[in-house]
């Protein structure tokens, strides 16, 4: 049987990969994909803890996270399309008009 800590370590690795993607990649679409990796790592933690506790709440909050992920993908991709129309670029450094 697999101990709970293995799932948590796997989840931490996936979350770190997602964080690294957000900070290192310079393509808005890949940054959104990295956010999805992070959300999935959190989902895995929820389900593993719920299974260890023997109740269903871990699975239920996973559905809410999935819903938020879907909403975030829809709004984020709409923003990407609007930004691409303005500047013809997906590089986040092209959108620094508000930067002081």
């Amino acid at each position, binding site marked *: 049987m697999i101990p709970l800590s293995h799932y948590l370590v796997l989840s931490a690795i996936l979350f770190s990969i997602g964080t690294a993607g957000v900070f290192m990649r310079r393509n808005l679409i890949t940054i959104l994909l990295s956010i999805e990796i992070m959300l999935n790592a959190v989902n895995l933690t929820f389900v593993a803890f719920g299974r260890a506790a023997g109740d269903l709440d871990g699975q239920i909050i996973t559905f809410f996270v*999935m819903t938020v992920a879907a909403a975030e993908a829809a709004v984020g991709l709409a923003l990407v399309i609007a930004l691409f129309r303005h500047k013809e670029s997906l590089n986040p450094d092209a959108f620094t008009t508000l930067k002081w």
Partner: protein
Amino acid sequence: MPETIIFYLLAALAVGASALVIGQRNPMYSVMLLIASFGALSGLYIQLDAPFVAVAQIIIYAGAIMVLFLFVVMLLNAPREDGAEWDRTHPLRQPGITRWGTLLAGLLIVQLALALGKMTDLNAPVATKSDATTVSSVTELGRSLFTRHTFAFEATSILILVAMVGAALMARREGEQ
């Protein structure tokens, strides 16, 4: 120990595919690899006696969200990063830490490692055979979702509505009525 072997295979697939997602220059390959990663995670959910979450993972993530990403990648038709120039100006290639975000990401990894290192009572097996039927029951899941968590469920529907209106508003061309 077939269970352990399957766990490590799926974990390696998830980590490898996720690492390749952020290593690819072409976002099309990134999306495909992320679908593979989600498939591996879905297998892990089945191991955790959560078959409904596994199916929802495949249908919602791999089916809906990733297809949305694929559509946008193909719609924008800008598949490749301009490698040479972007590498030259990349914050990680600059001398010293030019962005605090990089430092914070390193700090996060250290924190996670410390927190995971302190665990002593988590080495018990996560799944015991006795309560597998209650945890994997879709009936119980639906009952809990529509009784104890009704408010959150209804609030989620408002969230979806707001996201839908927001996405339609954002993606609209300027000057259109």
